[in-house]
């Protein structure tokens, strides 16, 4: 563990008492390695380490903590601060329906998350969600969302695969508004952030339905590429938040820090399984501990 590695560092260095430039240097090398192994982005790690170095140097070692524990505390606290606030609540539009748009790379968990988000709204706000099937490309994507809707007893608006996703989204939201549904959750096809046509499609969907929430659905096991895709999606759409999926695995989840750093948008919820259960709120302290390993 990082604690063991840091203990090793401080055993080798003779000066105890204060954290100095010298013993901090070696300790931070270990922290840097731990963060890279946790998939935090290279450049994010660099900036993070230089910030932590400033904070750690000169800190008097607390009586109750060993030097390694002290370093970990500084690192952990800074990670928690960067992770942002604990998720508060789902967004509700003043004038319903609340429109939520889910976006992200292929296979990240958007369609499953759409169902989980619907459950979260219904259980915490006692409202009537509507799901909109705007993925016309992936074989049986519409069937997948329709099946999910049946399983959780949430209606699904779909128009098969022969209509422009922008029209499906627009009509789905109108349908929701006319029948008093709230929120209207629009599931979109997975796409590469470098696919200009498909990114343009998302911008057109956004223009057509004016979402109150645009959530990036990202896989917790994403590696260094997290910053590329997150910054691109954010630049094109101005995200309102992020959902991290597959957090029930053993990926350290450094992508969370990278995505947060590069977009400055809140991580709102986490997906903790394949079953259709409500999304769980994001806990910054738990994420910080997990990343540090």
């Amino acid at each position, binding site marked *: 563990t990082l604690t063991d590695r840091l203990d090793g560092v401080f055993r080798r260095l003779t000066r105890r008492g204060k954290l100095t430039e010298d013993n901090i240097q070696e300790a931070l090398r270990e922290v840097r*390695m731990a963060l*890279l*192994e*946790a*998939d935090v*982005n*290279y450049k994010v790690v660099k900036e993070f380490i230089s910030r932590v170095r400033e904070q750690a140097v000169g800190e008097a070692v607390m009586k109750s903590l060993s030097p390694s524990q002290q370093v970990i505390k500084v690192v952990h606290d800074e990670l928690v601060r960067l992770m942002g606030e604990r998720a508060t609540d789902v967004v509700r539009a003043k004038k319903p329906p609340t429109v939520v748009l889910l976006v992200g*790379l*292929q*296979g*990240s*968990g958007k*369609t*499953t998350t759409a169902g989980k988000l619907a459950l979260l709204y219904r259980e915490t706000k006692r409202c009537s969600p509507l799901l909109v099937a705007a993925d016309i*490309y*992936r*074989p*049986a*994507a519409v*069937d*997948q*969302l329709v*099946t*999910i809707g049946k*399983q959780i007893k949430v209606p699904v608006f779909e128009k098969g695969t022969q209509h422009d996703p922008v029209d499906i989204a627009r009509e789905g939201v109108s349908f929701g508004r006319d029948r008093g549904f709230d929120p209207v959750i629009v599931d979109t096809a997975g796409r*590469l*952030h*470098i696919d200009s046509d498909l990114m343009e499609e998302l911008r057109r969907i956004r223009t057509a339905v004016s979402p109150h929430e645009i959530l990036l659905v990202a*896989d917790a*096991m*994403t*590696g*260094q*590429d997290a910053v*590329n*895709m997150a910054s691109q999606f954010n630049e094109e759409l101005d995200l309102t938040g992020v959902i991290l999926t*597959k957090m*029930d*695995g*053993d*990926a*350290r989840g*450094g*992508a969370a820090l990278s995505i947060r750093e590069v977009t400055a948008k809140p991580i709102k919820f986490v997906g903790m399984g*394949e079953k259709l259960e409500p999304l769980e709120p994001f806990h910054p302290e738990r994420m910080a501990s997990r990343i540090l390993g």
Partner: protein
Amino acid sequence: LRGAGAVDDDLLDSVEEVLILADIGVEATTRIMDAVRTDVRRKKIKSPGELREILKNHIAELLGRFNVRLQVGEARPHVIMVVGVNGVGKTTTIAKLAHRFKEEGKSVVLAAADTFRAGAIEQLTIWATRVGAEIVKHQAGADPAAVAYDALRAAKARNADVLIIDTAGRLHTKVNLMEELKKIRRVISRELDGAPHETLLVLDATTGQNALSQAKTFHQATEITGVVLTKLDGTAKGGIIISIVNLLNLPIKLIGIGERLHDLRDFRTDLFAEALFG
């Protein structure tokens, strides 16, 4: 590395950065950089171009200098089981593989053994129709091993060349799901000696260091014979496979470079090393 600058510490630092950004991982990067720095000193490397060649050589070395192709043996049917965590591209890869085999004039049967996920059977059914493969499926919620068993019986009866078994995505940390995979394997090996002849682990190129523990765990549970690295048409480089090949001795056989049927290629170490440096 294409410029005319000096081979100095700054350049070596930016090389290290490129390796880490490619998801090669701390340990493998350290090993590569140590070897590269030794070479730079010993051979007195002066130009970035030469450094580039040294790098590509070290990477090719770690990846194994030979390319392992997907082979179809003498068994009828040749049984391929496809496994991996959720959303990596198993079902789509199976469609691409079926398409490749059909183009080679082979008859293909697909087993819809993902009986859990919403729309999974429908998804594979659409692909089967598109490629002209037969599909064996049960109702949603059925026993995956029963589907695999039935598909194998059907493939034998029809004298099909290839049977490809689609399985549900599962996190390697879920012991009961890994047990289910072992059961599918046991059932088909009892029905046909030597089956499955190939067990492909599908990994997503956007995955970071976790891909290594995925590979370790899946290999322990169900002897992997090859890896498919998907979504290389994105910006992720999939560098973690260097550790997977080097530490686990698993060959990378195929790569996925898109969502259409022909977006499947044989893995080539030289092209992979080339792509790492843009």
